[in-house]
């Protein structure tokens, strides 16, 4: 990617529309387009060769999402920062709301029915948490980060939504929130021993959670238990993962061919249009197809990291890095779970799994990363003022 035109300080902070459009990262859009196309193809296959009921709707949402992505990419970072804390508060409120009034799906409360759309606040939280942490750490100096007291606020910022999500109960999303947050803590320079402390506490909490019926539901425990020994419960919870492994393994190197996946088309594979879509993809396109898709994701994540490194403001850096890591967590957890490496926790495959909120938030996330790329030379002071020299 070429360097932007060298501009003066005041000019840097007042980019024209033309400049912004010129800085849109087209390779990134190309990668997104590739992955989304694979997604459309798989939704077409999941419906046994029909655009209805999944592909057409997903494509429409993708169009809307792309527009939102471009819109978000145009917003400059400073403006964004003003909306971060209010957005965080709104997200928390939505999480509280979903805990009390959410729609029950798969034994968990995850959706808010807004009439026209169904909203998953936990997905929104993934983006707003990254923004919030980026905003908070932006205001800290390197020395501040070294002080344990200054870490109390961001830790709370993470734990409150994580607890609310866990309460839904959505183990996967809660885990992702914490992993992304931890990664951002490391990037801002938090010492390892502090992590060890938090980790020890985490283990304690996990132990408490395991033994407390209010926090971890039986079905979540069962999922973890069947993960340890999937063959033990072939008709029950182990069924999903066993069938998924059969589908993957039987795909072989080159796969069974588009629309030819027997496991998915004969309904042996559960949730083939959502959480287990990677399995269907790898059954039909084999290991080669699977590696190509993983490669596309890695490129997309790497692109985000490069954008983060090149950004001159701490907020932009952390934002781009956090969102890239968020994307990594998404595809890693999803693929690792369908391959039987980790428990089935219900994390979708970004840009591919059927589901509106995830698609929207992921695309808005990419919009934010693009905004960071466009406004990478914008310098922002700790107190939100223009920083000169």
């Amino acid at each position, binding site marked *: 990617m070429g360097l932007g035109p060298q501009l003066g300080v005041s000019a840097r902070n007042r980019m024209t529309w033309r400049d912004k459009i010129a800085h849109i990262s087209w390779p990134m859009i190309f990668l997104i387009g590739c992955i989304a196309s694979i997604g459309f193809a798989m939704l077409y296959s999941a419906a046994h060769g029909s655009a209805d009921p999944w592909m057409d709707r997903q494509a429409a949402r993708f169009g809307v999402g792309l527009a939102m992505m471009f819109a978000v990419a145009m917003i400059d970072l400073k403006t964004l920062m003003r909306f971060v804390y209010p957005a965080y508060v709104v997200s928390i409120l939505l999480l509280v709301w979903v805990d009390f009034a959410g729609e029950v799906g798969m034994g968990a409360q995850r959706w808010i029915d807004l009439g026209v759309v169904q909203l998953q606040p936990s997905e929104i939280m993934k983006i707003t948490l990254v923004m919030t942490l980026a905003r908070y750490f932006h205001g800290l100096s390197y020395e501040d980060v070294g002080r344990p007291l200054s870490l109390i606020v961001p830790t709370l910022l993470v734990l409150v939504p994580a607890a609310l999500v866990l309460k839904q109960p959505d183990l996967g999303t809660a885990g992702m929130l914490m992993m992304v947050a931890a990664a951002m803590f490391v990037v801002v320079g938090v010492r390892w021993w502090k992590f060890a402390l938090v980790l020890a506490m985490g283990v304690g909490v996990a132990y408490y959670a395991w033994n407390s019926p209010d926090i971890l539901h039986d079905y979540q425990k069962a999922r973890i238990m069947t993960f340890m020994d999937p063959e033990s419960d072939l008709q029950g919870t182990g069924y999903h993962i066993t069938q998924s492994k059969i589908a*993957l393994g039987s795909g072989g190197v080159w796969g069974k061919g588009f629309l030819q996946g027997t496991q998915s088309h004969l309904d*042996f594979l559960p949730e083939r249009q959502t959480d287990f879509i990677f399995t269907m993809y790898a059954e039909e396109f*084999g290991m080669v197809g699977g590696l190509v898709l993983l490669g596309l994701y*890695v490129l997309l994540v790497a692109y985000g990291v490069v954008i983060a490194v090149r950004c001159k403001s701490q907020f932009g850096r952390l934002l781009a890095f956090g969102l890239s*890591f968020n994307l990594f967590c998404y595809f890693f957890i999803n693929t690792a779970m369908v391959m039987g490496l980790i428990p089935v926790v219900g994390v979708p495959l970004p840009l591919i799994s059927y589901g509106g909120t995830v698609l929207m938030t992921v695309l808005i996330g990419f919009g934010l990363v693009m905004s960071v790329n466009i406004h990478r030379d914008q310098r922002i002071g700790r107190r939100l003022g223009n920083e000169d020299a």
Partner: protein
Amino acid sequence: MGLGQAGLTLALAGRLYYLQVLQADKYKLLADENRINLRLLPPSRGLIYDRFGLPLADNYPNYRAMLVAEQTSDLARTLADFAELVPITERERAKIMKELSRNRPFTPIPVKEDLDWEQVSRVEINLPDLPGISIEVDQKRVYPFGGIAAHLLGYVSAPNEKDIEDDKDPLLSLPGIRIGKNGLERQYESPLRGQAGQSELEVNSVGRVIRELAREEGTPGKDLVTSLDIGLQQFVQQRLSAEYSGAAVIMDIYNGDILAMASTPTYDPSAFYRGLSPAEWQQLTSDEYHPLTNKAIAGQFAPGSTFKIATAVAAQQVGVSPAFNVFCPGYYTLGNMRFHCWKKEGHGHVDMPGALQHSCDVFFYELARTIGIDAIAVAARELGLGDVAGLDLPGERPGVMPTRAWKKATLGQSWHPGETLINGIGQGFVLATPLQLCVMTARVANGGYAVKPHLFKANEPPKADGPSPYPKMNLQQSWLDVVKDGMDRVCNNQRGTAYSSRITIPGMEMAGKTGSAQVRRISMAERATGVRKNEDIPWRQRDHALFVAFAPVHEPRYACAVVIEHGGGGARYAGPIARDMLIETQRRDPARRNPNNEGGRREMP
């Protein structure tokens, strides 16, 4: 951080390699096991024919109405509409409901079996108004002659647990399969059954059939052509049906073809196909006359005077001259025991043919005492007594041909001289099946060849004049001629015991031997006041009436044996039946008729 992500991504790639390359074969197999369902295709069962190609056991199409629950929106309505066309009983309705609740909605459930043609057409015409209903056809086993050959054909019914355990053929686990449980159906079960075909079906996770991937038709069962002449069988069975209980066999003396074998009372074999109700089963098994038993091979009777044939042959075998002469005063004394002749007044001087003609007991007492029981047993065994005849039918019983050693071994007692006398006239320990008596007569009539009876039709054409396919036994023609002469006189001499039952049609005359086997002890007191007539005593105590015969007398071809259980005197009750059987046989002359002119079928290997 970047390194960590790269490492995790590599772990994913490695996992993909492990699953999709290293373990691919294992998972491919599992995926195929998931989606491929093997379904057995039952082969059609081989038919059983009589010697002229008439089907005795046939497969008829069984039209049945099936219901697929998911194809109708209103199940109760469909069933009600169907019931208007074809009535459904309450019991059937309950069964349908049970099947519906037990199966998945796409599984076809039989609604009504065995629809007749009119019902099928009525349903077919109304199919558009009967969503979910379809007509399917499979096969049912039908015995067109019903009880006429029930004991020979046996029957088929669903295999029980033991059958499935003993026979590893996967066909047995197929619902609706029937296997031979008795008679020829059981004897030739394996060739009749054939080999199952296989259909490879692709199914989804709930078992719905998506499509057929491959189909391999099975091998249908081989047809069995029997030696039976069903027309003759029908005649014999009906002729016998006037009696309470009895059996009759008629066979070709040269090639061993069983032309007819009847046992009365009989039963309807198709009842077993349907499945008997407990009450029906109870009735069949508790019947005093044992309708389920094939008495021709499983009924063991004292042969009575018919055994004198064996004693006469045995005597000549050990060198007794046919001119051997005995004076019969009506009784015989051994030590301090007195043995009576059936004729109180005695027969006077009799030789061997004369003794057979009059069935003189005293002559044979003397003959038996002279040669001893073991010598009698040697000849009797050669004639086919005391061991199974080896008929290709399950359930044959061996009868008893006693010897000294036999008594020692089974009863632990030494032989009593008086027992030689009793057994020499076919009473006492000696027991024979009607089939054995028929074989004995055949072996005498065919000149001493060890003919063996069989029900499947022999491959070679009958050889009346050429060399017999059976080995010649140690029986000289001259000895047999003496016996045949005696048997000729039994029927054709005015003073023979069966003269009244003779065949008067020229060229069809028969030779035979009567037998009345006593089943009760006649006390001295009764003898003094006069032996009671069979008609005056209860059925169970009456004599068995027996008759063995061959015909035509000068050019023998057919041998027959008739046993009427507790029938009374052999001459009076069994003789006429044998006569009618032999007349009918010779009139039809199945052994000399060319079956190929009448639609003969390919034969069992």
